[in-house]
């Protein structure tokens, strides 16, 4: 046993020496540095858009040596991200925890009584704005928006729209579609966007409003069909898919992909992470990814980011109020 422990300690020792050595060459060698691995909390389940992006960041940070300690992504997607929000709230002052957010950052605290006020959290950086597309299974007869509306109406309310947790972005977009077209669907919540896409392809739900990155693999394999983009302009990777505006319906919705820290995160740590993400945003890998997945890489930090969060929270409060308090329609 003792021998075993020693071996393990030796292994751990070698690993940490390797990390420290790697960190020393980093451009961030001066000033505050993380003392232990950085926990990257993800507000969503595995395989969804938020998860993929967070894991991509982890890989970029480690490949380019942008942090002196390893980054450990942790999924806490339960209850539309409530699990992650509450976790961050309970980590007050912690300099080694950052959270990857999506729009449920606004909606979940508004809809539940988990005692979280996002104004207390520390904004770090907004990396990108993600887009939404209406999808159906490629074997479906639905080719256009008109087909979609007709099919939903014909189903008498039994058309199944898959999406992330109730009250999260997907359900908001669904509610907007219902209102705009005077239709009624059955909204089926899943743990993450990857799960949703799989259930569209498997035929367990009829449609979804996945982000492009979540459906891209299936789209390329010819298993999912984009019907309409909920963006101001056509999405470059889907040049033949019309936007809602082109079709005469003013529905535009987007999702921020940002990072925040817990309340009272030390200022030096905030500066460290802000700089780290600024460097990430300038890497080739990130530029390629944003282009391939039609993400708008709009970098924003500090007070401007906090102002953006609060403004978006107001907007979402209004959307939720229009939908009914629990967020389901």
């Amino acid at each position, binding site marked *: *046993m003792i*021998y*075993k422990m020693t071996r*393990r300690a030796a*292994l751990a020792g070698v*690993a940490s020496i*390797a990390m420290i050595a790697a960190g020393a060459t980093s451009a961030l060698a001066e000033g505050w540095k993380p003392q232990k691995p950085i926990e990257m909390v993800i507000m969503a389940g*595995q*395989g969804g858009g938020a*998860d*993929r992006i967070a*894991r*991509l960041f982890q*890989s970029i940070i*480690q*490949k380019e040596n942008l942090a002196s300690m*390893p980054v*450990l*992504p942790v*999924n806490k997607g*339960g*209850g*539309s*991200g*409530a*699990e992650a929000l*509450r976790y961050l709230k*309970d980590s007050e002052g912690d300099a080694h925890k950052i959270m990857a957010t999506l729009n449920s950052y606004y909606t*979940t605290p508004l*809809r*539940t*009584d*988990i*005692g979280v006020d996002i104004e207390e959290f520390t904004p770090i950086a907004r990396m990108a704005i993600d887009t939404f597309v209406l999808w159906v299974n490629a074997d479906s007869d639905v080719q256009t928006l008109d087909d979609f509306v007709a099919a939903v109406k014909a189903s008498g*309310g039994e058309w199944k729209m898959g999406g992330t*947790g*109730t*009250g999260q972005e997907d359900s908001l977009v669904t509610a907007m579609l219902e209102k705009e077209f005077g239709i009624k669907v*059955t909204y*089926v*919540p*899943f*743990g993450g966007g*990857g*799960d949703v896409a*799989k*259930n569209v*392809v*498997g*035929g*367990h*739900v009829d449609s979804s409003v996945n982000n492009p990155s979540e459906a*891209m*693999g*299936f789209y*390329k*394999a010819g298993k999912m069909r984009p019907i309409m983009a909920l963006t101001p302009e056509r999405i470059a990777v889907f040049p033949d898919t019309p936007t809602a505006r082109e079709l005469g319906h003013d529905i535009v919705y987007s999702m921020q992909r940002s990072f925040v820290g817990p309340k009272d995160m030390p200022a030096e740590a905030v500066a460290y992470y802000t700089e780290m993400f600024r460097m990430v945003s300038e890497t080739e*890998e990130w530029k*390629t*990814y944003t282009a391939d997945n039609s993400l708008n890489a709009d970098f924003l930090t500090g007070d401007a980011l906090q102002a953006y969060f609060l403004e978006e929270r107001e907007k979402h409060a209004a959307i939720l109020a229009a939908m009914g308090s629990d967020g389901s329609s």
Partner: protein
Amino acid sequence: MDTLALLADGFATSLSPLNLMIVILGVTAGLFIGAMPGLGSVNGVAIVLPLTFIVPPSSAIILLCAIYYGAMYGGAISSILLGIPGASTAVATTFDGRPMAQQGKAGLALIAAAVASFVGGTISVLLFTLFAVPLADLALAFGPAEEFALVLLAFTTFVGLGGDDKLKTVIMICLGLVLSTVGLDLISGQPRLIFGDLPGFYAGISFLVLAIGVYGIGEILYTIETSRTAPQVTPAKITLRDLGDGVRTMNKMWRTMSLGSFLGFFVGMLPAAGATPAALMAYGIARSTSKNPKSFGKGNIEGVAAPETANNAASTGSLLPMLTLGIPGSPTTALLLGGMVMWGLMPGPMLFIEQPDFVWGLISSLYTANFAAVAINIALIPLFVWALRMPFTVLCALVIVLCIVGGFAPSQKMHDVWLIAGFGVAGYLLRKADYPLAPLVLALVLGPLMEKSFRQTLISEQGNILAFVERPLSGTFIAIAVLFFVLPLVKYLRKGGARSIAPAE
């Protein structure tokens, strides 16, 4: 033929000196990471991820898979020797592995675990090689209704044909299900059963905390009581002959091991499940199909073989949806997915067509990783067994320390340590009252999955409960589940009833 040619190309990649070295290194590191309570393959892979950027992508993923595989083997070691699951996937291995160690058969149990892991790994890699692409379609056929039916089936294998008192088993399952609802509601996000506003309960109760409590601490308390005069941990020795005997014993268990392999691969393949449920289900099925179910939980070697084949098979199985659908089946495969995105590989239906070198290099390395893991593991068994020769008074303190560290490490909250202490005492009392503990752990693992899939099905079918039986796949599972439940009743009626009403003792 086409597959074989591609695989041969793959072997050209995985048998290169660099990759062979990487496999051996990865498997050894994984073995120790897995054996350490609180450190699982997730941590191992996460920590090593940065090192992988200095080698080509195919070598990098081989390293990560080797660690993943090694950790699956390693998890069994502390489950057997100390009764603390080394990794979440090895929970079921404690059920019979620990009693075997107490009877002085630790060496045999470790050999059984290694051989079973090897068989499970090999059968599942073969399945992967031959059927990866068509099987991906099967994973797609699994919607919420099917998931629910499968979980229900897992529960009935524990109740129906098990050796324990049925009423007590049902009580323990219900208790586990109640514990599984603690935390935030999966669908609405509302907090449930948080005991006022205790922050620690928001994250729910981790089943690893429960397992470490009831098996680690509870077991130690029980042993202290029963062995006040003579420490009963028999110092185990192991010789080459024992090794041969062990392998021969395993040779008789093909039925259990192949069942475990297929089940493990299949359950691992479903994005929502993973290796832990797979191991627990394999244990339940091995017990319910055994001629002697009462010997399970008391040191039956099949109780070690079944979960160990299944968890290794499942770890291969969970690579399948990750590679073919881009949906990771376990936390570790999610990390692998991140690495692949970074290397510019897009996991999904096109990967097999666009990147055959990468895919087949990976598959062939699973074969080499498996061979390396079983060889290294068996070579180290004497060392592990030697650890048990220390006096019980020392071992006992060491186990308690490891329980606390193992419980604290994943979440780094004292909350979990207190829970472990509480569950330890509860586990001790339940054991004295002869309540089975395995169903409790099973219910906590599968409860959230069961609840979520049940609610999703009812939502999507407008509350039509018949949906579960109307769909062919889920209908079949439910029919088998009902059969498992009814069969003992029939047996009981045939026997004439009255006699078996007496208490189980």
